[in-house]
């Protein structure tokens, strides 16, 4: 009896400490990795990095300006293509759909969300690159746009549903029709949430490389217009990190830091905004 109690207590302490150790290990590995990235990336960041084109191997002072601009252009296209579809489909789910359609659309959205990004790349390749017969900004933007859709749909639906019902009733009781209620009261009330969702979706696709491999492809130079292959930050990181030259590796670290910074700033910012919003609502 007494022995058994001691055994139970020992087991209790041991196992609980073990879970603590798990946490410690994971968290410290993760922190070490990020710290290492910041350390290495920070060393190689310079003004040139943001403003210059890549230089031939052996010359110093090159940058990835074209990739930064390229990523921005690709994200712009992704937004142009994905956000309207995502937001409006989200409005449909929250405000109009019946049970069956709601299930079907949600299910498809989840399905699309789970598709590996490389497969999205194949899809964009066969629908945009093959007919156009060449890699292009357009194809890359399309691939990223498809990836933003499911995230935007679900976050839009979620935030619209969170709008309290009395607000709807208030507008309807004033003689607003349903679509006017949606447009003038419900969507504005959910706007900050919807925008947050869009930002998170863009932050997620901003780091995607696989869908760009055979759509946007990559480019050593500027890519004017929307019809040519274009460089992007994740592609540059991939190419440089797997390349053989020390200068390339340095640039890969720096580009990785910039990309990570961008993604984290958006994520932290939006999460803080949301946290504040929900705590006010409570």
């Amino acid at each position, binding site marked *: 009896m007494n022995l058994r109690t001691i055994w139970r207590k020992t087991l209790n302490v041991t196992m609980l400490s073990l879970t603590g150790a798990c946490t410690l290990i994971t968290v410290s590995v993760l922190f070490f990795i990020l710290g290492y990235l910041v350390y290495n990336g920070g060393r190689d960041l310079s003004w040139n990095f943001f403003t210059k084109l890549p230089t031939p191997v052996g010359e110093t002072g090159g940058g990835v300006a074209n990739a930064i601009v390229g990523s921005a252009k690709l994200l712009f296209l992704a937004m142009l293509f994905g956000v309207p579809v995502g937001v409006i489909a989200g409005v449909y789910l929250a405000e109009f759909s019946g049970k069956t359609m709601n299930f079907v659309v949600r299910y498809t959205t989840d399905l699309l969300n789970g598709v590996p990004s490389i497969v999205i790349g194949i899809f964009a390749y066969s629908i945009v690159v093959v007919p156009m017969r060449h890699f292009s900004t357009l194809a890359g933007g399309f691939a990223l746009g498809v990836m933003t859709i499911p995230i935007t749909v679900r976050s839009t639906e979620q935030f619209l549903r969170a709008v309290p019902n009395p*607000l*709807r*009733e208030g*507008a309807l*009781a*004033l*003689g607003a029709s349903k679509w006017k209620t949606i447009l003038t009261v419900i969507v504005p009330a959910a706007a900050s949430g919807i925008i947050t969702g869009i930002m998170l979706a863009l932050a997620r696709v901003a780091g995607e490389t696989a869908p760009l491999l055979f759509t946007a492809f990559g480019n050593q130079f500027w890519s004017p217009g929307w019809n040519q292959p274009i460089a992007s930050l994740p592609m540059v990181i991939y190419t440089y990190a797997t390349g053989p030259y020390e200068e390339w590796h340095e640039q890969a670290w720096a580009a990785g830091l910039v990309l990570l910074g961008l993604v984290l700033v958006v994520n932290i910012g939006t999460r803080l905004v949301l946290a504040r919003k929900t705590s006010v609502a409570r």
Partner: protein
Amino acid sequence: MASVSPVRNAETENMNRQPDNARDAAPSLAKPPEAPAVASSSLRFKVSKLKVFYGSKEVLHGIDLEISSNVVTALIGPSGCGKSTFLRSLNRMNETVRHARLEGQILLDGDNVLNMDVVRLRRRVGMVFQRPNPFPKSIFDNVAYGLRINGCKEKMSDAVEHSLRRAALWEEVKDQLHKSAYALSGGQQQRLCIARALAVDPEVLLLDEPCSALDPVTTAKIEELLFQLKPTCTIVIVTHNMQQAARASDFTAFLLEGNLIEFQKTPKLFTTPSDPRTEAYITGRFG
């Protein structure tokens, strides 16, 4: 007609108003024997055999009730007896509830509300809810909302001021019209909601326990407000506060479990009720 308020914009006038002769004709249509006659008022709502179902559950079992214009009619009864359901039938807000179904007839100035365009109906019959529900917009935009969705563009600020004055809120908010409505206190928010409903100049104002979330001082303010609105608006108020019904209304209807038990002039109902159940309720024996 006493129901014409001092300032009215031409557009809503056209949209909402019937010719006076049509309305004057209404009382002669049906003068129910038990309906108390009030000299200055005419019949506004005539509800007959109203049954409402949520799914298969029948919550109103055939209500007959006539509501006169330019008086305050109070609905009392224990909670769950169907007061809100009845009120929300008058402007068809029940349609927003899935599985809600309605039988019977509701005439507004002689027209069946069920055949009306619901948007126009709700412009004529405004509603204020139990909890204040201002939109997450500025005070000004809240009041202007109804006007804007009706496509009215002119003299917005005059109309807003007028509505806020009618809701006795103007003095308190005139310097902060562009602040968020959420910055106001609960009582102010409720008066803002009243102003918002008044802005489209409804003929009828429905209030569903508008004071249940408010303190006594604010409640008194709103009761005072109802009194002032009476000449320009027909008011139907749901309350489970009997003192409030006694103070603020001209007529009182007592509902119990989906049936109309008694409908009387307020002083009569509270002093000499004709039904023992009414008496039991007002003397606090149940509910």
